[in-house]
């Protein structure tokens, strides 16, 4: 199919998905007990104060009306104002998102750069000591909660071996963050650990499957050596399922950022989401969820596009 048509269709589909996400999140948030007024004004607030707050914020109108109102302002780039921070949500996200992106993209890149070769190495050395050792480490890394792993990292690499600072880079601009690469190491490692574990398993399975495919025998029969077989043929074929998984992994990465940002005191989206959830700050919560769902949809879209590039069969609708 024509690539332009395909992209247009996929982008439109993505918009529909995002719209549905906003509806679902909106309904869920309004189903919470207590409502935001009680959360903002505290337990001492009188019924009159709560009614007034609800009226000022438009919370006394019917849900569909509130939703449409929300959607209209959304189209103007206005995500509302935080109940607790007294700042435009769009402004908050604008400040925090780049930092989280730096963290998650770096984690993802580091994670993949380790996971792919590790998985292939395991497949080639299947059922030998290397395979067992990496498999064990993968399961340990995968089953260790990020907050625990983060604490261990802090303990080992800032206290016992004072190689890295225990705080993530501080500062408001991206430039300031990137100027302290040393401080980024531990947060990125904490974020990448589970990714290495998960994706090295995928890569190992995909490589093993491909190594037993008929085409490998054909390539061998043509006189190609093991190295050429692995890198020229098996690598690309094994990558396609892994790339497909990547898009679905975006929300997991954001979830990980939530914990990592807490641990290393890194004021990104995760921290923002956390404090907003604690104070029932609806506009901020909705804004965050929206951003994360857009990121997920964009991630999936990107994964699909990359897959179309790697695998010509996808483009032809054969795979």
């Amino acid at each position, binding site marked *: 199919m024509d690539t332009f048509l395909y992209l247009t269709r996929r982008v439109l589909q993505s918009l529909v998905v995002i719209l549905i996400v906003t509806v679902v999140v909106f309904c869920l948030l309004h189903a919470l007990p207590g409502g935001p007024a009680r959360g903002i004004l505290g337990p001492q607030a009188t019924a009159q104060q709560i009614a007034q707050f609800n009226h000022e914020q438009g919370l006394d109108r019917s849900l569909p009306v509130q939703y449409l109102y929300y959607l209209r302002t959304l189209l103007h780039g206005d995500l509302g104002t935080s109940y607790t921070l007294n700042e435009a949500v769009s402004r908050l996200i604008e400040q925090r998102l780049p930092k989280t992106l730096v963290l998650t993209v770096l984690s993802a890149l580091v994670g993949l750069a380790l996971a792919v070769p590790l998985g292939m190495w395991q497949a080639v050395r299947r059922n030998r000591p290397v395979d067992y050792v990496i498999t064990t480490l993968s399961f340990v890394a995968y089953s260790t909660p990020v907050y625990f792993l983060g604490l261990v990292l802090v303990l080992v690499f800032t206290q016992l071996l004072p190689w890295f600072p225990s705080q993530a880079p501080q500062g408001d601009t991206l430039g300031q963050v990137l100027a302290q690469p040393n401080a980024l190491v531990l947060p990125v490692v904490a974020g990448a650990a589970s990714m290495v574990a998960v994706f090295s398993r995928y890569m190992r399975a995909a490589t093993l499957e491909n190594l037993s495919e*008929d085409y490998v025998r054909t*390539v061998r029969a*043509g006189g190609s050596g093991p190295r050429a077989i692995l890198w*020229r043929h098996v690598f690309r*074929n094994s990558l396609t399922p892994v790339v497909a998984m990547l898009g679905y992994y975006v929300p997991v990465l954001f979830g990980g950022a939530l914990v990592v940002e807490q641990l290393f005191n890194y004021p990104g989206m995760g921290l923002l989401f956390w404090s907003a959830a604690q104070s029932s700050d609806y506009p901020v919560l909705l804004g965050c969820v929206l951003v994360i769902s857009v990121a997920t949809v964009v991630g999936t879209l990107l994964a699909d596009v990359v897959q179309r590039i*790697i695998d*010509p069969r996808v483009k032809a609708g054969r795979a």
Partner: protein
Amino acid sequence: MSILEIENLGVTFSTETGDVPAVRDVSLRVRPGETLALVGESGSGKSTVALAAMGLLPGSARATGRVRVGGTDVIGAAEADLAGLRGRTASMVFQEPATALDPLTRIGAQIAEVIRNHRPVPVKDAAREAVELLRRVGIPEPERRAFAYPFQLSGGQRQRVVIAMAIANAPSLLIADEPTTALDVTVQAEILDLLRGLAADSGTGVLLVTHNMGVVADFADRVAVMLQGEVVETGPVEEVLLRPTDDYTRRLLEAVPRLSLADPPSGARDRPVEEPVVDLREVSVRFGRGRRAVRALDGVSLTVRPGETVGLVGESGSGKSTAARVALGLVAPSAGSVSLFGADLGRAGGRARRALLSGVGVVLQDPVASLDARMSVGECVAEPLRVHRRGMSSAERRARVADVLELVRLPRDLAHRGPRELSGGQRQRVSLARALVLRPRLLVADEPTSALDVSVQRSVLEVIRELQDELGFACLFVSHDLAVVQQFAQHVVVLRAGRIEEEGSTATTLLHPRTDYTRRLIAAVPVPDPVLQRRRRDERRAAMGVKA
């Protein structure tokens, strides 16, 4: 000097349950320019011998004895030395063209890789050579096609690409493992012609592994017959195929269904006059929508009358399986009507539809995939009873299952075993028992014996025929094998690209076809008689305007 010398080859596979010998004491020779066919049924070890010659045995295999290719010892050789041999001195063509090529690499690049593995040719020159090779193996527009991915080619074209890779460095030995088994007969004939021409041009020795005696007659100079890992008979093709000395060879050849080319003693019989059990009228089936829609059937009308067998033949993609599925109610026609036992299947719903369909039994091609491995044989066979005869007690059901197992000549106590414990032929009889347990009036058999060895095929077909005489069901028999259809069906329908090309009584249609297509289809079937096959081949090529 021989290009391939195998002396006392033994191959053992180590499995979880111990060592399993696959090949024992095999000695063979292939001289330059000669084709040796290695024949035998599945499990006879013929493919293992071929892989051993290329040094491509899997890690679980242990080889003993001596294998020399062009004077180099293969057994025990280092992987690097083998890589230097493979694709240059000896190369191989595989059975399954659908999976034999890297799906993500352009075919020109795959051929060029083989060239550059052995000759220090610049990338550009290798690409040019690849195009030349594609031209030699008969790929149209090779300059453009070199940039195609495997999925953009047909099965026959893919096999041509695999052959192009195999001949890229003019090897002295070509090993072909069932090179045409996955292909239609007409494509098979073309590929065999191609291989024969290439081998003759360059004096290449060929080791041809096949189970198809027609292919052997068409191609081989000498034949070695394998049984349970050992060679039981070797000799020139005329000797082995026409005057076999070994008992097993004789039995194997007897089991091969032969396309009879002379008029049978009894002429064409009239079709039964009763109301048809299944009646497809002007049925069209489309898959997909819009511009990409595929017309699988286009205005097909066919009937099967009580007690008769109608053969449905055609090449892959001709729509024969789709037609069978329409008769089974599995595919709804986009136009036309289907009536089953006189009732309109399209209009019947719910219980009425179920009742109609309970009168149809089905046997499919793959005996492994069509039985649930988690159910015992008894449960598999009893399932239609549980669906359609809900009032039946479990004791009655057990009795009926045991009876029907006996009917297909399986022991009654097989009911407690799992399908995996059975051989291919036994499994297919279990499928047949399941199809017959409701005493259907129509049996739909879609390539029921294509996955089986010839000797097993014969016994399964015999069981079906005897039961048909006994129980009187009609049969819609889908097959690509014209010889089997000729023996089995009274009426034959030839499909081509979703349309009926011609139909008539089997006796006349397959002997005196009216259309060119059917004629070509029949001419392409190789017969297991080397003398006759040579004549047929010359006639076929003359008809196509090719010089013999």
